[in-house]
């Protein structure tokens, strides 16, 4: 058995849970596809047995093709120096998932952010009040179904800009292409 074959603490943890789809992106990154109900257990195991004390971020992806949200939990261990990204897919309707605030306190802010930007509800999250948007009354703006341009057209008006040089250009058959 060479040194490379010695199981790392990460592998040991991962071997304890069934149903994981593991792919090694590089020596310091592991990507996991996790069934929704296994994620809190996985994070608890990683935290307890492999020193994964640091939740770097939770990110969210909206997949309109499959009507799903993909939540990505990035955890980092100062012991193993391997980044684990755990991908969970949840259905857009009702768009509910569990909070991991009890495992990682910073998750509170990430979940609040995702709740505001995507409308995902996190059960057990301490605080899901509006976060960074100012007086926002529209739909969650990071959804793929949200049209930023339509919103802008409705909310703001434009300054007319017809300089002389543009008229010259248009006379010669050019101009600004309206899409």
């Amino acid at each position, binding site marked *: 058995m060479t040194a490379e074959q010695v199981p790392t603490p990460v592998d040991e943890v991962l071997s304890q849970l069934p149903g994981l789809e593991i792919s090694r992106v590089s020596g310091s990154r592991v990507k996991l596809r996790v069934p929704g109900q296994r994620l809190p257990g996985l994070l608890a195991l990683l935290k307890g047995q492999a020193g994964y004390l640091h939740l770097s971020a939770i990110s969210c992806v909206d997949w309109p093709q499959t009507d799903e949200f993909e939540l990505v939990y990035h955890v980092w261990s100062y012991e193993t120096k391997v980044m684990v990204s755990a991908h969970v897919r949840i259905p857009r309707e009702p768009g509910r998932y569990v909070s991991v605030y009890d495992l990682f306190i910073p998750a509170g802010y990430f979940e609040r952010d995702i709740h505001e930007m995507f409308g995902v509800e996190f059960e057990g999250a301490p605080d899901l009040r509006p976060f960074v948007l*100012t*007086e926002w009354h529209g739909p969650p703006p990071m959804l793929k179904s*949200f049209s930023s341009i339509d*919103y*802008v057209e409705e*909310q*703001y*008006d*434009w*300054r007319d800009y017809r300089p002389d040089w543009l008229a010259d250009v248009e006379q010669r058959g050019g101009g600004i292409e309206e899409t």
Partner: protein
Amino acid sequence: MAGKTIPIESDPNTEVACRDVGGEERSLLRRVVDQFADHCRARSLFVLHYCTGCGAIELPPSITARFDLERMGIQPMATPRQADILLITGYLAVKTLKRVILTYEQMPGPKYVVGFGSCTINGGMYWHSYATIKQLGNYIPVELYIAGCMPRPEAIQQMFLELMARIDRGEARAWEDYYRRYDAYLAQQQSLFGTRWEGPTDVVAEARRYGLLEHQTLGPHTAHLERYAPYHRELGVPLADKRGSGSLV
């Protein structure tokens, strides 16, 4: 303040009127003094630069040894209450705009806002962003714009020269528009922040102080400020309906 009409009778009931302005003050001598004051003011400008997004590369060379704007009497200033120029460099998120308006309202008049870069003119490269405003001039009166993304320090220098010339000639009076048409500016602000929006400054009282209270100063949108200052009852301006006509215009 050449050409400014000082009202002959100031309102004795207002606590903000410092003194009665007599007719003799509007004399020729007074206008000469005003012109001299404008001339001096143009040569001592304190700039508050509100670096919202950009401009952190272009402004230091303008201010420091390379172009040295201080030789023209232009100096950076740390607080809005001592500044003459509010330099808005770059895009403004809705959230930032709120802070800009609070800052602007704290500046004493005469005050000059300079929109710096394309974003303040028509949204710039953030034209399709839900989070940034498109025209700064809708929310506060802008004296001058510098087009470009980003404008070079030479353009900043050119702008300051133009601004100085305008102040010297007594033409830089866009700031008075905020008092004259406060209702329209407030309407735009309320369309973003809602009708409960309020600044720290009593703009209507300032408008009276400057003698700039006109029929467009008060209106249906300033009526939402009624709970802070009851000018409408005092001045006999009819109140708008309270159902929240904040998203007008």
